[in-house]
């Protein structure tokens, strides 16, 4: 390997990182490679943004600051150790710790059990624990690196697919490992909002019509003004409010995978503008041309899986965000109005939130605020 493309950053400036953290994804001719940090520190400055450009091996991608030191030595580069095959990129990208020949490899009991389960060669595992000991995480990484790519012929499209899959895997593993989630859900009557939108769309040509997702996005954005502790990041053991209300919108690709780039300052935009920007995002996710900043700066994510025909979606948070709001499909629900059960269009909103950063009481207020905003569509 002599060059690679920077596919995505999984950290941003100011993030604290630990040795072994995956911080970026680089695409090489053969495979997607996780770039890992080799020491603890803080991401001082990101020097290269993801793009289609080929970067020579050795390119400095970011500057890391060590704990308590002002100097910021170049810390990561396009990894020099080329993966020999496409089968174990994460491991290949990690430097070998010094080992003494003949010495029994240090490995934690849990890691050993897991490695044996998958018949991994213990001698070939790289350790990230104390004194280079192999810990469970190393084994999981080796398994993850080995499984999906094995035996696949390389092609540009598959590399991209693989790169995206690995980026999702890295982010979701981190999310699942670190974030203590709680879930709240509520059924939101949608008859008023949809009737209002249908009347508005009636005399307009297709390219000026709204889809209800625009109403959902605006309602979430306005609700976040009331409960700002769901809009931002959990960093260094504390919540940091987002610099604006930038909603990450989960967009799936027909061939698999998804991305959740941001629409910025949604609370300040009207519905037509939000709709146009959402359409632009979908086009660029599926056709290319996303800006790196769009992928890295959402302050919360919204996912609407309604098209798939499910009533609810319980999302995983994209770290370091602290919440994701999931909407199911609009369906005829039995609601009670004036003591009578009536069939009305409704949608279920599920909030998945980071319990380190906020609590259920405020989460309930958040969902109720979304619900209330959607009952007054003309004010959105």
């Amino acid at each position, binding site marked *: 390997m002599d060059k690679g493309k920077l596919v995505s950053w999984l950290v941003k400036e100011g993030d604290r990182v630990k040795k072994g953290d995956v911080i970026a994804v680089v695409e090489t001719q053969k495979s997607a490679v996780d770039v890992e940090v080799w020491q603890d520190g803080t991401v001082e400055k990101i020097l290269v943004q993801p793009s289609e450009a080929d970067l020579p091996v050795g390119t400095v991608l970011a500057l890391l600051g060590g704990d308590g030191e002002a100097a910021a030595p170049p810390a990561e580069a396009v990894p020099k150790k080329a993966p020999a095959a496409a089968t174990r990129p994460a491991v290949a990208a990690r430097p070998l710790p010094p080992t003494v020949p003949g010495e029994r490899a240090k490995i934690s009991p849990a890691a050993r059990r897991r490695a044996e389960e998958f018949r991994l060669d213990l001698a070939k595992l790289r350790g990230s624990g104390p004194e280079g000991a192999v810990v469970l995480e190393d084994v999981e990484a080796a398994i993850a690196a080995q499984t999906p790519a094995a035996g696949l012929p390389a092609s540009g499209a598959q590399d991209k697919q693989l790169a995206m899959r690995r980026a999702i895997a890295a982010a979701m593993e981190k999310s699942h490992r670190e974030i203590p989630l709680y879930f709240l859900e509520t059924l939101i009557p949608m008859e008023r909002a949809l009737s209002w939108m*249908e009347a508005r*769309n*009636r005399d307009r*040509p*297709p*390219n000026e*019509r709204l*889809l209800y*997702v625009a109403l959902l996005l605006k309602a979430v954005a306005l609700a976040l003004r009331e409960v700002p502790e769901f809009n931002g990041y959990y960093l260094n053991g504390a919540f940091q409010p987002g610099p604006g209300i930038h909603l990450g919108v989960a967009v799936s690709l*027909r*061939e698999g995978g998804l991305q959740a780039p941001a629409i910025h300052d949604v609370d300040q935009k009207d519905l037509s503008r939000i709709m146009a920007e*959402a*359409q632009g995002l*979908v086009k660029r996710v599926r*056709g290319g041309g996303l800006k790196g900043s769009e992928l890295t700066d959402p302050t919360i994510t919204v996912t609407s899986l309604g*098209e798939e025909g499910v009533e609810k979606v319980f999302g995983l948070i994209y770290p370091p965000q602290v919440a994701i709001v999931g909407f199911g499909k609009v369906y005829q629900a039995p609601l009670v109005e004036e003591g009578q059960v009536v069939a009305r269009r409704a949608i279920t909103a599920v909030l998945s939130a980071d319990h380190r950063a906020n609590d259920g009481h405020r989460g309930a207020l958040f969902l109720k605020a979304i619900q209330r905003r959607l009952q007054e569509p003309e004010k959105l």
Partner: protein
Amino acid sequence: MVLKDEVLNLLQEVAPEVDLGSLDLNLPLRDQVDIDSMDFLNFLGRIYETLGVNVPESDYASLRCLNDLLQYLEKKRGGAP
């Protein structure tokens, strides 16, 4: 160009991954291709731009198969002044 080919080209523009050859024009479109409401709106937007036919939301429900849509467009275009 015949209407059918024009419409299929527009569909391909909106959803490049779709294999037109495998489409059955008499089966519901959404059962055959993975298009969402935004794709469908973009599709109708392109139909409006190139064929001048505005399909209102209230007619969506009657346009399940591509053949429904083709007949609908024929009628609208024939009836247009």
